[in-house]
């Protein structure tokens, strides 16, 4: 599957990333550790305290630095996916690639592998640096290989999934702006939808929204995608890692399926596939209506909140129907 | 050298054939001169190479040019070119006709024209003799 020309082209387009990303990652992780444990004059004292209590987690700040690193990597892979898929539609690059003697599958795979390698490479490099820093610092006695390995495994799985998601969005949207927007939406959509549904249920049926059970607590956590990036070390489990790996594989497969069916003549449309446009339209209308219903319930005090909700819902429905229909016809200039 | 006239009634390959023959008749191309290859002429005139090839085939058939494998295409010897001779004779007759017409327009009478022709023939013969004497003297 190795095609030198395709790799060199990816590299030519993303040269900045290849060098910038590990550096930024280092600032978050290795340098952070360095700062804390070698540069800081109080380090030695702290090390003695932790050594006394055997508190490895505290010494490693329960994964704070790794979280920091994950967030930067998330930003990087989103922008990379934008460069690899979104901008290509605009400057004739995608058409150029499609005219070459390579299958679309191969082109996609090269791109994805490039991103995946960047993630893996930066993680490996920076974890190694981190390990060296720890081993050379006053907290060396508390060094835990298991800690580093758990963190790197989890981060890799999580970021591969995030990257695959960004890539998938890149293969179904026809412009760089719509790719960015949908990417952001994807981040807030799960928890946002939950919140809207919860509020709607509260207003329309009972006064408590979704029940206060364990299931719903867990669900909220899971839907709040950002929390996975800030996950503290004691919550990192191999189950989560596995789920994200599987998710990464599924999303990547979806991206490949979609890329093979890409129609360059549709570049410039916000969403490339007609059926997907419809799905997004329905979803957008549903969410917008609920949102406006909520506002309506808050604004209109004509007796029951339900009335205000209904009015808001109807208004939201109409406006979003019009707006989304318009958006479906939009074609940005390529 | 060769100019293709797009508005002409002649197909392009015929224009090439006749223009090459004209160049030879005028003396611009002499016996043994190398003419451009099909590829070169095609690029020079911006004419499809098959068309040029067709013209060259015709010229070769008429004995006007000859292709030496590995070396190139050359103007053939006049003796080998019966087609050329015919062409040149026709050209000469046409020139004569044009002279006759022009003379008529200028009001020069038949007798005057015939006298002029004889004078020119006489002058030419004297020049040839002088040249002959000259070369004999130089030897």
């Amino acid at each position, binding site marked *: 599957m190795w095609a030198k020309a395709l790799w060199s082209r990816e590299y030519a387009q993303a040269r900045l990333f290849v060098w910038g990303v590990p550096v930024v990652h280092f600032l978050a992780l290795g340098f952070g550790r360095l700062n804390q444990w070698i540069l800081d004059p109080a380090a030695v004292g702290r090390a003695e305290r932790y050594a006394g209590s055997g508190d490895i987690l505290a010494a490693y700040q329960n994964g704070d630095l790794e979280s920091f690193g994950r967030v930067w990597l998330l930003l990087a892979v989103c922008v990379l996916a934008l460069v690899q898929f979104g901008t290509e539609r605009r400057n004739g690059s995608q058409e150029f690639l499609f005219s070459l*003697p390579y299958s679309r599958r191969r082109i996609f795979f090269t791109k994805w592998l490039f991103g995946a390698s960047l993630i893996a490479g930066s993680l490996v490099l920076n974890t190694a640096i981190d390990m060296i820093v720890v081993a050379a610092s006053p907290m060396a006695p508390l060094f835990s290989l298991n800690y580093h390995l758990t963190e790197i495994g989890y981060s890799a799985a999580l970021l591969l999934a995030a990257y695959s998601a960004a890539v998938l969005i890149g293969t179904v949207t026809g412009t760089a702006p719509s790719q960015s927007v949908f990417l952001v939406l994807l981040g807030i959509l799960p928890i946002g939808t939950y919140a809207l549904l919860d509020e709607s249920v509260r207003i329309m049926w009972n006064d408590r929204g979704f029940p206060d059970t364990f299931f719903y607590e867990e669900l909220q956590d899971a839907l709040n995608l950002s929390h996975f990036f800030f996950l503290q070390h004691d919550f990192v489990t191999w189950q989560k890692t596995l789920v994200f790996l599987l998710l990464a594989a599924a999303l990547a497969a979806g991206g490949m399926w979609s890329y093979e069916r890409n*129609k360059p003549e549709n570049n410039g449309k916000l969403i490339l596939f007609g059926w997907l446009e419809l799905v997004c339209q329905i979803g957008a209308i549903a969410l917008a209506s609920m949102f406006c219903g909520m506002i309506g319930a808050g604004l209109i005090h004509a007796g029951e909140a339900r009335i205000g909700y209904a009015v808001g819902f109807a208004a939201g429905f109409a406006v979003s129907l019009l707006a989304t229909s318009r958006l479906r016809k939009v074609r940005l200039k390529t | 050298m060769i100019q293709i006239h*797009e508005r002409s009634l002649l197909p392009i390959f015929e224009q090439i054939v006749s223009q090459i023959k004209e160049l030879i008749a005028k003396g611009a191309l002499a016996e043994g001169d190398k003419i451009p290859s099909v590829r070169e002429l*095609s690029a020079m005139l911006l004419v*499809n190479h098959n068309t040029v090839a067709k013209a060259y085939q015709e010229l070769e058939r008429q004995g006007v040019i000859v292709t030496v494998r590995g070396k190139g295409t050359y103007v053939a010897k006049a003796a080998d070119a019966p087609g050329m001779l015919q062409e040149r004779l026709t050209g000469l007759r046409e020139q004569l006709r044009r002279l006759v017409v022009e003379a008529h327009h200028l009001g020069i009478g038949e007798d005057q024209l015939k006298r002029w022709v004889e004078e020119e023939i006489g002058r030419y013969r004297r020049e040839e003799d002088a040249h002959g004497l000259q070369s004999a003297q130089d030897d």
Partner: protein
Amino acid sequence: MLTVCNLRKTIDRKPVLRQVSFSVGPGQVAGLVGRNGSGKTTLLKTMAGIFTPDSGEVRYGETSIAAHPEAKREVVFIPDSPEALYGYTAYGCADLYANIYPRFDMLFFKETMKRFGLPLDKNIRHFSKGMKMLFSTGLGIATRAQFVLLDEPTNGIDPIAKKQVLTLLMEAAADGTSLIISSHLLDELERIADKVLLLKDGTVETYETGDEANAGIAKLQVVFRGEAPAAWLASPEVKVLEHVGRVYTLLVSRAPSSSAYGELEAMKPLLMEPLPLRLEDLFAWKLGGPSNVG
């Protein structure tokens, strides 16, 4: 042999290509003509594998390029602007192409760039339009692919660069490369092309150049006896190209089903002289007319 077979392509619910079939052999130069918006670029891009046809196929030899994209090593597409390669130097592009096309001729490419005074180490984004086209054409020919597809290669470039591009193409054709060139410049195409592909209403009609006789049209210079027959002149089987004084330049259908030519003969005109049919006339006959304003 590059064969296009029953190609159909709809874009934005409009059928751009309806039933396109033709073939181009080795060493042939084919000119693709049609009104603006008739689908020339769509056809070329579908042949290059950029667009996927709704039905039908494009074959290199016996191999469908949709099923086997590697076959496209022999089919290279040169768009009217090399914007995908902005940011590379000429040398960088050659390097990239050398990794893609196994027979890439680096020596030829360098010589061509030198011949036309194009710098190898400058970003091609800064080239003038003429330089860009010259560069793209040289790059495409240097791949030594059997078929080179060009989308309006001489559009909007100065006459000197245009001549240079055409010279390069003629040399490549003489060396055995097949060219498919979409163009509006009928005079040029007439000289350089072996065959003309006329794209109209989503289908392609093939004509061999120099053999317009088989197009079923006669071009005539006519002077009528007496009054010019307005009704006959207005018939769809007759087209008036020019009308100066009493002299008409006409295109008259010679299709077996048409009686127009016979009718003209029956009128016993004072003058009825055949003229050579030019590509321009064919274009006007097939693609001109109020229903075809594009």
